[in-house]
C-alpha cells in the first residue's frame, strides 16, 4: 500500500477530530438543540472522511440526507414539541447504569480494536461483478440497480411504510383516546397460570 501523503493524513486527522468532538458534543450537550448541532458536525466530519476514501457520492448524500434532512427533522421536532429545555445530565436515576455502561462500552471498544488490529483476518476473493473501477458514482449506480435491485426495491417499500407509519403516529388524537392514558393490562386468564402453580387438585 502506498504510504499516505501528508495532505491525506491532515484530512484524516482533521476529519477525525471533527467527528470525535461532534460526537462528544452530542452526548454531553445538555440542550437537545446543541446536541443536534453537534451531530451536524460529526456528520460533516464523516462526509469529509468519505471523500478521503473516494466515496464522493456518499459524501454528498451524507451532507444532503443526513445534515440536510435528518438533522433538520430533529431540530424541527425539538422546536415543534418545545423540548429544548436543558436536561440534567449530572444525575442518573438508574443505579449503576453509568459505571456499567462505561465498562461495557470500554470492553466493546477494546475488543473491536483488538479484533481489528491483532486478528489475522482471512480475506477471500470478493465478487468481481461489483469491483470498483474508480468511478464510484457509476459503480454504485450499477450495483444498486443490478446486484442489489431487490434490496433497492425493498427500500422503496420501506420508505412508503415509514411514511404511512409516521402519518398514523403523528395524527391528531381524539380526546377519548387521550383519556386512556394508562394502557389496559392485558387480560391474561388468571386461572391459567395461577392454577398451574397452585398444585391443588380438585377432588
Amino acid at each position: 500500500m502506498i504510504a499516505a501523503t501528508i495532505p491525506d493524513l491532515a484530512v484524516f486527522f482533521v476529519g477525525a477530530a471533527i467527528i470525535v468532538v461532534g460526537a462528544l458534543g452530542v452526548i454531553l450537550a445538555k440542550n437537545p438543540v446543541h446536541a443536534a448541532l453537534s451531530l451536524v458536525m460529526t456528520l460533516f466530519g464523516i462526509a469529509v472522511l468519505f471523500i478521503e476514501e473516494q466515496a464522493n457520492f456518499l459524501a454528498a448524500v451524507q451532507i444532503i440526507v443526513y445534515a440536510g434532512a435528518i438533522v433538520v427533522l430533529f431540530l424541527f421536532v425539538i422546536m415543534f414539541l418545545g423540548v429544548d429545555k436543558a436536561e440534567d445530565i449530572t444525575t442518573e436515576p438508574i443505579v449503576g447504569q453509568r459505571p456499567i455502561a462505561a465498562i461495557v462500552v470500554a470492553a466493546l471498544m477494546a475488543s473491536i480494536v483488538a479484533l481489528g488490529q491483532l486478528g489475522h483476518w482471512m480475506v477471500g476473493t470478493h465478487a468481481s461483478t461489483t469491483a470498483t473501477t474508480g468511478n464510484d458514482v457509476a459503480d454504485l449506480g450499477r450495483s444498486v440497480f443490478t446486484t442489489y435491485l431487490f434490496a433497492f426495491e425493498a427500500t422503496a417499500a420501506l420508505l412508503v411504510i415509514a411514511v404511512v407509519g409516521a402519518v398514523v403516529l403523528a395524527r391528531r388524537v381524539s380526546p377519548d383516546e387521550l383519556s386512556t392514558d394508562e394502557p389496559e393490562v392485558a387480560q391474561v386468564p388468571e386461572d391459567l397460570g395461577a392454577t398451574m402453580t397452585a398444585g391443588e387438585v380438585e377432588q
Partner: protein
Amino acid sequence: MSVNPSWFLILSALLFSIGAFGLLIRRNVLVMFMCVELMLNAANLSFVTFSRMLGDIGGQATVFFVLVVAAAEVVVGLGLVVAIFRRRHHAVVDDLSSMKG
C-alpha cells in the same frame, strides 16, 4: 496515497462507542436517537473503509441502504416521539416503563 485503513476502523470503533455510551446514559429520547445516528455512521464509516480495502463497491452500496433505513427509522422514531409527547408532554425515556414485566 491512502491513510492506513486501520485508523479509520479505530476511529469508527471510537465513534460507535461514544454513540453507544450516549445512548446508555442520556434520557432524552431525541438525543438517544442522535446517538443511534452516531452509531450508524460509525458503521457506515467501516463499510466505506472496507469497500476501499477490498476494492468492492458493495460496501458503499450497503451504506446507501443504511442511509435509507436510517431515514426511515428517524421518521418513525420521531413520529413515536410526537405521539408520546402528545399524551405525556415530555420525552424522558425513564418514565416510559409501562411494559415492566
